[in-house]
């Protein structure tokens, strides 16, 4: 069973998307070709079934398929707590969003491309999730990057304002503060490549040093001991470049904001629920086996975890603040996603001091966040569809017309921000507890960052809810009687209830622990604060007195300058110098030398005057000279 199931898990979605991909090349836009999308969703369904099967029936353990046995590199699949849940999560979300996409993407001009990359993404994600081998993980990882690029730039024509990010025509200084899809794709892939290559190096280095690439088999303590303090820091930081860029941590956050130029389904699946979470997931998976809590004798490891802790939490605060200033539906959600990812990093990094439980908290937060944020994105997509506007707008009248969306939004936001006694409250309590616990090792700064983030985060999501359904600006509504889309996000949001049930009843052994932490009074105080922030955000989604600050925040604190001005600027200067160098070499080799030869050549031929006496003078002169010199030389 296993030997068929596991390859099928990855191959099925890709194979099932090929028909529509090829059909679209032959006859783009044909009705029959559009029907093939159902086949691709069927491929996602197969993956989902297998992932669930793995979740419920597989023993913990590893499964190997031969790949490069000569090199001790194989396809090694691991089934442990993290991968089983993450795989099932990916399967469910991908399938639900696939169903949503059937309706959302109807009539699109590039469905072959869309479904191919969508399904390839799912396969890659599952590969990342289940892989124990780092090289195999990298294949999935590269697949994620590629799919993300392909899907962000899906509407490559840049002809529809609805697919842009930022206010079209707005400039700050020399920069255009709006980004078309093709630009979004380029920003995504360039950032991700920047991170992937150092990570690739780290993987190769691990292979060079240990001779194996199986995360669970490497003797990490021995490895860190071997390479010493500097080596550990270097290796880990280079490795983490991959997760950091993929999970859009500072300073690599910009691409995630402009990734919103992709279709909303893509934002929901890739840029909130799964792909960006893959960075944190990989960090958790590595920490799970590195077991940093056992490596306190190695100072390098501590430095790395402190680094991750602060990068994560600072990014979280940054993301949450930016989210409060955003007016675009999807960008707001993207910023808040970045914030959540930061929290996951921060919390997982605390495992160095707190132990394995910190990873579990972060992981549960990942799951909660994935369902909630995917729901919000799907709602946002529906709203954009219905209002033809990517900026927040809507009021209670709209909420009445779109009851399911409204309800889903309320549930998702409330369950996600950490209002007691809903799902995220318990998970966040765990997080508060973890960060609080490490205060005597790293001080109060992390806790402060965490609480600030939680408050702002709550306010931002409340703003999203309020501005779209209660107090938003005016709008034009064009409902088309969508069925699948509400169905998809309603199902999605109901998953949060399932999680809540798991936590409260304690049927899931890890989740049960969160309840204890939720009863700690400090957690409850934070919960109250969050609730207050949510209420304020709902009541006053925009404060005109703070519009300057809002603009600064929605310009993402001028971070675009890094991506669009400083880095390219340096690049162009070098490219310009290189261009000069090329012209110089070119001129020297292909103008200078030949013209020197030409001059030389003409001077050689200038002695051909045609007079015999001249020739004789030269020739005989030479003969005499040589004879004299040789006679003298002999003497």
């Amino acid at each position, binding site marked *: 069973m296993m030997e068929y199931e596991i390859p099928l898990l990855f191959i099925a979605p890709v194979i099932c998307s090929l028909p529509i991909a090829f059909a679209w090349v032959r006859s783009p836009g044909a009705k029959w070709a559009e029907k093939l999308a159902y086949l691709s969703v069927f491929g996602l369904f197969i993956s989902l079934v297998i992932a669930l099967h793995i979740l419920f029936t597989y023993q913990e353990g590893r499964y190997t398929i031969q790949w490069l046995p000569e090199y001790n590199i194989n396809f090694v699949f691991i089934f442990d707590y993290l991968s089983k849940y993450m795989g099932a999560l990916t399967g469910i979300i991908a399938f639900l969003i696939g169903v949503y996409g059937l309706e959302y993407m109807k009539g699109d001009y590039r469905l072959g491309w869309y479904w191919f990359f969508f399904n390839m993404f799912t396969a890659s994600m599952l590969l990342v999730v289940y892989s124990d081998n780092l090289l195999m993980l990298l294949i999935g990882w590269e697949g994620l990057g590629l799919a993300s690029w392909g899907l962000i730039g899906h509407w490559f024509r840049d002809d529809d304002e609805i697919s842009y990010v930022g206010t079209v025509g707005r400039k700050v200084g020399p920069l255009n503060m709006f980004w078309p899809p093709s630009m979004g794709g380029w920003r995504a892939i360039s950032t991700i490549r920047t991170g992937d290559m150092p990570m690739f190096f780290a993987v190769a280095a691990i292979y060079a040093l240990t001779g194996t690439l199986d995360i669970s088999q490497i003797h990490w303590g021995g490895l860190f001991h071997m390479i010493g303090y500097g080596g550990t820091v270097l290796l880990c930081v280079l490795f983490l470049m991959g997760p950091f860029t993929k999970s859009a941590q500072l300073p690599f956050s910009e691409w995630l904001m402009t990734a919103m130029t992709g279709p909303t389904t893509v934002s929901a699946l890739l840029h909130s629920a799964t792909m960006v979470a893959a960075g944190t997931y990989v960090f958790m998976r590595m920490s799970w086996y590195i077991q940093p809590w056992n490596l306190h004798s190695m100072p390098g490891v501590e430095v790395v975890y402190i680094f991750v802790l602060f990068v994560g939490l600072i990014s979280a605060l940054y993301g949450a603040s930016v989210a409060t200033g955003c007016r675009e539906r999807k960008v707001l959600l993207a910023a808040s996603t970045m914030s959540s990812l930061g929290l996951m990093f921060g919390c997982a990094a605390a495992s160095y001091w707190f132990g394995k439980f910190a990873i579990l908290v972060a992981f549960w937060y990942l799951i909660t966040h994935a369902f909630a944020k995917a729901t919000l994105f799907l709602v946002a997509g529906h709203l954009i569809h219905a209002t033809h506007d990517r900026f927040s707008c809507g009021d209670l009248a709209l909420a009445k017309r779109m009851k399911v969306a409204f309800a889903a939004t309320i549930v998702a936001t409330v369950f996600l921000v950490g209002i007691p006694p809903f799902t995220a409250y318990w998970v966040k309590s765990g997080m508060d507890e973890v960060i609080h616990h490490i205060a005597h090792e790293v001080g109060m700064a992390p806790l402060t960052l965490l609480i600030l983030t939680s408050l702002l985060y709550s306010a931002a999501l409340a703003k999203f809810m309020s501005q779209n359904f209660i107090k938003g600006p005016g709008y034009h509504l064009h409902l088309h009687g969508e069925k699948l889309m509400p169905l998809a996000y309603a199902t999605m949001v109901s998953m949060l209830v399932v999680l809540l049930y798991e936590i409260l009843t304690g049927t899931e052994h890890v989740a049960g622990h969160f309840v204890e932490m939720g009863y700690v009074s400090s957690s409850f105080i934070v919960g109250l604060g969050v609730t207050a922030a949510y209420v304020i955000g709902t009541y006053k989604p925009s404060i005109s007195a703070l519009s300057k600050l809002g603009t600064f925040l929605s310009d993402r604190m001028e971070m675009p300058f890094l991506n669009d001005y400083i880095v390219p600027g340096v690049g162009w200067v070098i490219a310009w110098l290189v261009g000069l160098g090329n012209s110089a070499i070119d001129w020297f080799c292909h103008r200078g030398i030949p013209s020197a030869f030409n001059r030389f050549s*003409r001077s050689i031929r200038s002695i051909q005057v045609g007079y015999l006496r001249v020739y004789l003078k030269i020739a005989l002169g030479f003969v005499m000279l040589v004879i004299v010199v040789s006679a003298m030389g002999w003497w």
Partner: protein
Amino acid sequence: MEAVVASILLLTVAAAVSLKSERGAIWLSVAALALLLVVPRIELLMYSMLIVAIALINTASLTVKRNQITGVDYSLVALIAVATMYIAYTNNPAFILAAFVLASVPTYILVMVGDRANVNVAIKYITFMVLATVLFLIGAFLLFYTEYYPSEILYTLGFVMLILGLGMEVGCAPMHEWVPDVFTAADPLPVSVIASITKIVPFVAAYKILILTSSPLTAHLTLFVAFIAVVSMFTGNIGALTARETSRILAYSTVANMGYIMTTLVVLSSQNYLYLAFAGALLQLIVNAVGKASFFTSIKVDGTSTPLMYLIAMSFIGLPPFMGFYSKLFILMSLVGAGFVWLAFLLIVNSAISIPYYVRIARSLARPTIPGRATAIAFVASIIMLITVIPPNWFVDVATYLIGGV
């Protein structure tokens, strides 16, 4: 040996017959050439076949257009061929020098015939030739003299004069002044002979003489040879770069080629690789002879078949699998083997400089293929260039045999 004597006799008859019938003269010349093929050894046979092939090409070139002495000219070519063949047999100093003169003198006549017969050119040519011959002969005498009465200064002088004479005879810089003028101003058909087969004998003669009289002093004197060779290569190749007339380019190309061949004489200082040096020199001479004959004939008829012209040009550049590659390979091998890596390096620099103008020659002579005598000549030349598709081991044997007897 007897065959050579017989063919000389035949040629005498041919010259007489030519007054009556050109056809008869041709046939007799060809018969004389055919007689040269009667040789005792396989190595000599290969050599004579190549020489006869070149002579036939040259003869064929002369038949493209009638000239003042049509009939006699065939015999003159055959005479040079006989001398070229003859020098292979002999190690006798007197015979070597006789062959040298024999190969040189017919060209005095040839240079004056053709459509563009021009006394001025002829005077330039003959003046230089006479000077060259004198220098060469004096040098040779001095060298032989030192064999019996050793004297370092005389040896040095003899060596230098021999090389100077050789250089002037074949057109090495800086005594090359006559070459561009003669090649450009004279009729291309006789030039196709002058630039071709006549270059072989002087070099073979020089080789034989220098080997016969070799002395430890040679090692010092090779630097002088290298100097002439390098100057010649650079002058020829660079001079050709901007020359416009095809015949002028070819003239400079000759200067350069003579430079390449001259480099091989430096290997005299270390006898181990002499056979390679001689093989390279001889093969380069053959390439030069075949290619130049074909090019000059093409100039006369204003171009021939495109692929053939390119093929010959590529052979001159020295690309495998053409013969021009192997000649350069042998030369480079001998130079590297004898420790003259710097000279080898300069040779390849020159080889690269030569590319543009050879391509230009090929392009300026390239025309659609139409059957004709010039095309046939180019075709035969191309075939000869292509016989080295199978690496010419045999040629090294030939060269070794030719100088081995010395």
